[in-house]
């Protein structure tokens, strides 16, 4: 049997990861704009959301055997 980490990702899982990366890019751009504008108050919230999204993406990419397609 193929170990979970070596199986294929389903298209849905890959799509979720790509969506997370897009959201992260937008979030980073927004945070950078805010910092350049002198508004640092948004940073803790942006960091928390970004960390949660990254945790979800890392879980899908490395540890989600249930989302793998059977070969």
């Amino acid at each position, binding site marked *: 049997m193929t170990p979970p980490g070596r199986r294929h990702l389903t298209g849905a899982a890959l799509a979720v*990861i790509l969506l997370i990366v897009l959201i*992260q890019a937008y979030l*980073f751009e927004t*945070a*950078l704009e805010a910092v350049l504008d002198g508004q640092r108050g948004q940073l*803790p919230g*942006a960091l928390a959301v970004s960390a949660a999204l990254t945790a979800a993406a*890392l879980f899908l990419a490395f540890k989600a055997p249930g989302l793998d397609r059977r070969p």
Partner: protein
Amino acid sequence: MPGWRSLFPVDLAEESHLSRREFGRFMALVAAGFTAGIGYLQLRRRPLNGASAAPGAAPLDAPAQLKVCRAEDLAPANSFLFTYRDPQDRCVLIRTASGEWRAYRQTCTHLGCAVRWDGKGLQCPCHAGYFEVEQGFPVQGPPTRPLSRLAVELRPDGWLWVTGELPRPGAPEARS
């Protein structure tokens, strides 16, 4: 067949194959990189180069007033580059076609590229942003906030002085 091929019997097509999971892992690491970037912004104490001071806070290490250039040295529709807060705080002094003085930080409010005067307005070369010269409002491209504007004063001796940062139009402290 070269000798090393027998040691690494993998076809070329197989060598360049990138599985979905490998691609997904790479993209997840890219996402982690964005998080690290936001974390760096959070931890960094000094403001980024050219960034505005926080509302209500005095700019760090800023001279209260700065002598920039003689008024007669700047013809209408021309600009003069100078630094204000520190050597990285690049600003531009503009004499408009109507003869008025404007000074802005060169930092684009989109992603921080340096804007430049083109004779009519301030153009950001990175993403084609454009700002009008009267108050620094964005009129084209991705920027949504006006440029950071500095107060300019013409003294009796003919020198132009920058005397501080003006509140941004539309900022909370400006509305109150």
